[in-house]
């Protein structure tokens, strides 16, 4: 078991954003989380990555308890994520965006940095080469010196995933990667997600509104509504679940 969430509950003041969320994730799986706006999907990502601390419940990753750990510690354990609304380091270069994700892997201390001795030079060269290699895997090497806010939208999405991958994760959390994409781009994105999964031997959790994407690539889907899990199963099962239809389309009217 790679990730296990047990009875995770989170309140914002009096509002219950997530209630009794359970998830068992095996290594190599691709699981989707869907649900209407405000159902608590992104909150779950924020709980797993330590941005919020769960009010109740446990989250275990690779046998380590995550609740109470800082986000950077959780990232170092091997969980990376992207954001619903792209959150690149906008004024920094594409290369620096990826190099920052290498932060915890750098092996020199502040004194070595201030006076440029010891492992400093060697580590700096290593991180540049590694970041450039990453960029070339994601076909972004030609933009390395570009300020990241100047990239076209699709490449910003791609860079955000490249940056997340540069932290060397075992588990990748994708928060609405298809937001703002047209159907053609979504097909490309599906291929792309499948490809990074193979390439990096990844486990993925995907939050998405685009049914085409979710139904196309997820093996298992959880449906959330008002913080509660209302259905779980394969894409086929979900598509025919009356509760899911109700959450999305509203209650049926008796004829």
């Amino acid at each position, binding site marked *: 078991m790679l990730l296990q969430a047990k009875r995770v509950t989170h309140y914002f003041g009096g509002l219950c954003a997530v209630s009794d969320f359970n998830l068992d994730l095996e290594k190599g799986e691709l699981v989707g989380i869907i649900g209407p706006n405000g159902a608590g999907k992104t909150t779950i990502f924020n709980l797993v990555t330590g941005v919020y601390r769960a009010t109740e419940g446990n989250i275990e990753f690779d046998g380590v308890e995550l609740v109470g750990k800082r986000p*950077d510690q959780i990232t170092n354990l091997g969980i990376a994520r992207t954001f619903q609304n792209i959150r690149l380091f906008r004024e920094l270069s594409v290369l620096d965006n990826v190099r920052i994700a290498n*932060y915890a892997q750098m092996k020199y201390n502040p004194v070595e940095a201030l006076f440029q001795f010891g492992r400093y030079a060697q580590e700096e*060269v290593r991180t540049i080469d590694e970041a450039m290699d990453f960029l070339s895997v994601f076909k972004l090497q030609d933009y390395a010196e570009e300020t990241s806010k100047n990239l076209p939208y699709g490449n910003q999405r791609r860079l955000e995933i490249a940056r997340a991958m540069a932290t060397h994760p075992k588990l990748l959390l994708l928060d609405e990667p298809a937001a703002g994409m047209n159907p053609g781009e979504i097909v490309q994105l599906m291929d792309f997600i499948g490809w990074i999964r193979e390439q990096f031997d990844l486990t993925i959790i995907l939050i998405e509104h685009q049914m085409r994407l979710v139904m196309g690539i997820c093996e298992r889907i959880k449906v959330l509504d008002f913080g509660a899990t209302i259905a779980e199963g394969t894409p086929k099962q979900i598509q025919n679940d009356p509760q899911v239809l109700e959450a999305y389309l509203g209650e049926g009217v008796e004829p």
Partner: protein
Amino acid sequence: MAKRWLLPVLLVAGFLLSFAIPILNLVNPYYQLILMYIGINIILSTSLNLVNGYMGEFSVGHAGFMAVGAYIAALLTTQLIPDNLLGWMFPLTVLVAGAGTALVGLVVAIPSFKTRGDYLAIVTIAFLFIVKSVFENIEAIGGPRGIPGIPKLTTLPWTYIWTVLTVWVIRNFVYSNFGRGVLSIREDEIASDLMSVNTRQVKLLAFVISAFFAGVAGALFAHVLQFISPRVFDIIKSTDILIMVYLGGIGSIAGSILGATIFTVLLEVLRPLQEWRMVLMPLVLVFLMIYRPTGIMGLREFRWFIPGRDLFARQRWQQKKEASNAAAS
């Protein structure tokens, strides 16, 4: 590579010149004094830029740190160090003043960084007021009258050496892993956390380094002015340093050097205006914020200051790739 070798040559030339000017009396003593103030102001603006420009926080307490450094150094040279050793002990005195200030910086930073933005500004203002009233109320260090009769130990060569050292060290920091952490906090702190940056550690580090150099500047300042009192380090002094940073440009070392130089020279040129200077300078800040909020150099850097490793990263990587491909085939 555009003549990058010129930079070290210029630095050595500057060093020799800093000796030649006072010995040969190349320019009159008034101009020598202004040169020393320019150096001290460069140290102040570069170190404040680390927190306000590179990290995007808003600290207003820089004059407070300067005061701590000035008092530590002045007490050492007036009370502790015997007169015949003063000259030799001066670099060590400045170093101790910097280290002491860095320690105070650490104490201030821990509560300060539980807050952000406006709140950090308020915490640092409070710090400034605390420092001022502490110094005013301790009779043993002169109380409101301050410390008179400080030996004039700051010379042009020492100012030059400390200025170059400050700029070099802060540049090294900015272009290191930790510096990139600092930048990422400015851009997006949550994303930074989630990219494995230990933001708490990085913030403390930046703040402590900034305080260290403010202390160094304070020590040098006390030994030019030869007299310090709590009133010298009030909110106006902090505002002056802020003007230098925002005039020159946030997130830019070249900007800090430019800002400090322009500000110091302008202050002297406008001296005939007397009190009206104090109206003009804030007005400069107002117009700056409206028409060019990032300052003259805003977020850009003089190419010679950027390590070649960073500047030619993609080029070098490509060459390496081609070389290894050629070797393989």
